[in-house]
């Protein structure tokens, strides 16, 4: 984003700075008003006290010596601190310097120069006045100039305007500085993310090490990019593996079709060639089918179908189904299956997982091998084990055999899509099953620890 005034005003940093300065100014004004009203009320109380004392001394004169003495006394006292006036019952002013307005009873304010244009500059002209009845309809008023109130009000207005002015300027400056600082970081992040979008997944967002919210956000995004990079790399690997893996059967298919076209076979021979071609095609379709299945499982939609599954019954049936196959292979099956073991999952996928594990053991073991299938309910999890005493897997290759299309050197020529254990791995991850591969000394032992908590099951596990 280009730095411009409009952009700055739109930015959240700037807006926050402005909002805070408005709040600050408002609270200052409120504070000054409270001080003002407190101070003026103190002043006024003092002033009123003085006016009351002066009034009572005049009232004493009036009571003892009458109106004339009062007027005389006022005449002597005038032009001092106080202002006076006396009106008779007809409203006629008898004496006084308290301006022209009619007198009233009680406290009130009088502007000394209310009728005149030429008020003295810089001086307070507001009087605090108290009117007192003299008994025969006449009124005595005593006033004094309310100097403090005006001075304070002026000071507060003066101070407020400076405060508001300064705060406004500082807020603008602060907003600008925060805006600049955050824009610099956001621009850096934006340019990094453009690099990443253009395909460079090794790029990462810059961190300044402060651990603030932008840093934490960037760190999270970096982790996300790392995961995407990993997934992309996995996908590229699988794509090239598929291409490699399918070249061989497609090549064989092509040879057979060529052979049949060139008429180098006759009758039954030809049929055999076609049969082989069809079985090659079936093999290729099977590979695609397995890939699709793995993709579907990884997408995790099957979680919706999860229900309680009787694992004991399923395992027993597996043993029953495969015993003839194992015996035909001159291998031996030993089973030890605890009854009543139940787990949460998708029946069909769990069945496929068990079948793949069983067939893996059967196909990769020579005759005479003992395959053992056991299921038990542990404290924390149901434990299913398929083990054999066959040739096993070198320990450094153990973690790799779950990868799609991974084949041990010695079984490279054997049939199979190379996806059987990858499918097992995907199903186990979906169900939150811990899959352990270990050396059975000799042979391979695969253990599946089913989680007892259905909730844990609902979280697809990350690829190991």
């Amino acid at each position, binding site marked *: 984003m280009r730095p411009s005034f409009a952009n700055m005003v739109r930015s959240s940093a700037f807006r926050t700075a402005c909002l805070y300065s408005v709040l600050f100014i408002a609270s200052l004004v409120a504070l000054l008003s409270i001080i003002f009203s407190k101070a003026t009320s103190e002043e006024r109380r003092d002033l009123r006290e003085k006016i009351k004392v002066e009034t009572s001394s005049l009232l004493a004169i009036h009571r003892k010596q009458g109106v004339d003495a009062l007027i005389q006394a006022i005449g002597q006292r005038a032009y001092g601190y106080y202002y006076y006036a006396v009106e008779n019952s007809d409203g006629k002013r008898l004496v006084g310097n308290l301006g022209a307005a009619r007198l009233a009873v009680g406290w009130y304010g009088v502007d000394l120069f209310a009728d005149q244009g030429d008020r003295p500059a810089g001086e307070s002209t507001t009087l605090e006045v108290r009117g007192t009845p003299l008994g025969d309809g006449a009124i005595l008023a005593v006033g004094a100039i309310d100097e403090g109130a005006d001075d304070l009000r002026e000071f507060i207005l003066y101070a407020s305007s400076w405060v508001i002015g300064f705060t406004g300027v500082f807020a603008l400056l602060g907003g600008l500085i925060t805006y600049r600082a955050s824009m610099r970081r956001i621009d850096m992040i934006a340019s990094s993310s453009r690099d990443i979008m253009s395909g460079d997944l090794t790029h990462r967002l810059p961190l300044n090490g402060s651990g603030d919210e932008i840093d934490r956000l960037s760190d999270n995004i970096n982790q996300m990019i790392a995961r995407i990079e990993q997934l992309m790399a996995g996908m590229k690997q699988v794509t090239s593996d598929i291409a490699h893996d399918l070249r061989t059967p497609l090549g064989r298919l092509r040879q057979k079709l060529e052979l049949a076209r060139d008429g180098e076979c006759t009758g039954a021979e030809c049929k055999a060639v076609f049969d082989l071609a069809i079985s090659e095609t079936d093999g290729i*379709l099977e590979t695609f089918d397995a890939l699709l299945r793995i993709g579907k499982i990884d997408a995790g*939609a099957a979680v919706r179908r999860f229900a309680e599954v009787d694992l004991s019954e399923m395992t027993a049936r597996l043993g029953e189904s495969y015993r003839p196959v194992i015996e035909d292979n001159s291998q031996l099956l030993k089973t030890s299956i605890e009854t009543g073991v139940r787990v949460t999952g998708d029946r069909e996928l769990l069945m496929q997982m068990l079948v793949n594990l069983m067939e893996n053991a059967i196909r990769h073991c020579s005759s005479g091998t003992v395959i053992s299938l056991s299921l038990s309910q542990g404290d924390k999890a149901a434990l299913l084990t398929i083990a054999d005493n066959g040739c096993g897997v070198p320990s450094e290759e153990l973690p790799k055999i779950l990868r799609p299309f991974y084949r041990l050197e010695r079984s490279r020529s054997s049939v199979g899509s190379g996806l059987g254990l990858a499918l097992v791995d995907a199903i186990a991850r979906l169900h939150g099953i811990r899959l352990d591969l270990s050396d059975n000394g000799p042979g391979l032992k695969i253990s599946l620890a089913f989680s007892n908590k259905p909730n844990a099951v609902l979280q697809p596990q990350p690829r190991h």
Partner: protein
Amino acid sequence: MRILVIEDDEETLDYIVKGLSQAGHMVETAHNGRDGIFMGMDGAYDVMIIDRLLPVIDGISVVKTLRSAHVASPILFLTTMGDVDDRVEGLDAGGDDYLVKPFAFSELRARIDALGRRAPTASEESCLTVGNLEMDLIRRTVRRASQQLDLQPLEFRLLEYLMRNAGRVVTQTMLLERVWEYHFDPKTKIVEANVSRLRAKLDRPFDEPMLRTIRGAGYVLDVPDGTG
């Protein structure tokens, strides 16, 4: 049998029509869901073969419409949508069987035969009889020529399915789906191995073998002449 095929892909349609006609069936075709519903409502077909991804009206809606109009003909979905969810959806909509493309023609034929000649309410009886073979579904016992056969639970289920479909070719895939509930293709010869165990108990002690292997297609439990 009179068969309706609703399929929009010309090549697949040709392949199905040619194969079914050769097998002696009368085949009629529709190229989209609307025509399919129209024809399905009108004629009494023995079996309908319906693709899922059809123009105008999709296969699932076609089947739902036909079923809500009380068309009772057996329906086979023939589709590329082979996921578990897809299959469950198809069967829930009123399909009787679900075959995923690409398929072997022998597989399609066996399934159509099984659907078309299905006994009306075969699941209720307590006893199945094929020739001199008797199965008591309640006591879980099997006798052949009054001689008790000692079958494992899996062999019993396998024989039950074969007896219910006696006289018809049953493919390996059909057995895997119905007896094992495996909707995937195991790599080992699990069906052959188990059928051969069953055959050892069913046929070896007797002169007349009943369970025949049809090469490249499947198995048939023969119905002796004069019965079934």
